[in-house]
């Protein structure tokens, strides 16, 4: 089972995603913006990260770049309502390894975990 960091400014989404992951046996850490995500990543060394895009303080794409500077092997998937092609391309260029578009299907989230960390 993995330690997973969920980064989303919407408390509702963090809770919903967290519930799904815990029900599937994972440990969950939460952060509500990109800056907090970097601090949590440094402190907790999660196995993977689900990252929203649009957030206050620091957006998800910037946070992905910063985390990849700390850990070039960081396994980060975006989890966002903003699935426009340009957004997906920016996320991949920043170092994200997958992009899950909201509304998310639980199976898609779980299969992304499997894909990224086995």
């Amino acid at each position, binding site marked *: 089972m993995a330690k997973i960091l969920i980064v989303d400014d919407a*408390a509702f989404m963090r809770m919903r995603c967290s519930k799904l992951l815990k029900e599937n046996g994972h440990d969950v850490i939460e952060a509500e913006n990109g800056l907090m995500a970097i601090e949590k990543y440094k402190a907790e060394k999660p196995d993977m990260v689900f990252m929203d895009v649009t957030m206050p303080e620091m957006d998800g794409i910037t946070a992905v770049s910063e985390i990849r500077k700390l850990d070039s092997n960081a396994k980060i998937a975006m989890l966002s309502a903003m699935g426009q092609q340009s957004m997906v391309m920016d996320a991949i260029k920043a170092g994200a390894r997958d992009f899950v578009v909201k509304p998310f299907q639980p199976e898609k989230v779980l299969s992304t975990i499997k894909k990224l960390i086995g």
Partner: protein
Amino acid sequence: MKVEFMNPFISSAISVLESEVSATIKKGRLTLETGDFLSQEVTVLIGVTGKVEGHVFYGMKEKTAKKIVSAMMGEELLVFDEFAQSGISELGNVITGKAGIGLEAAGFPCNLSPPTLILREGTNISTLNISRILVPLLTQYGEIIVHVGLREADEDE
């Protein structure tokens, strides 16, 4: 205001409400509105910039918002607290994000602001002379009115 800008929002709202809360939806009559927007009891506001610009509003009664978030949670919420507000804002965000993909596919890529929640009926919001199309969506949770006021970025109305 072109109707083609409206369609991605309606199809997205119907698809998201069906998948997220198993809503049965009846689409009401489209109307055109100009002048300032007046908020409903609960209104999610999202700004749009890019090839098209303007605002999208999702308005409803508080009891409707509470029922929808309860359905999203799978348990009845007794109060429309910050958590429930986060849930209804996120629903607006997801509907608009999905519509943004549709607009991009139609040749109108755009950026969307984070959702703003207005919790007071009758708040007056200027939409800078952009006319709006309103579509009521009737569901088992109550009525949600989708207001789309968009124009091409270099279009003067």
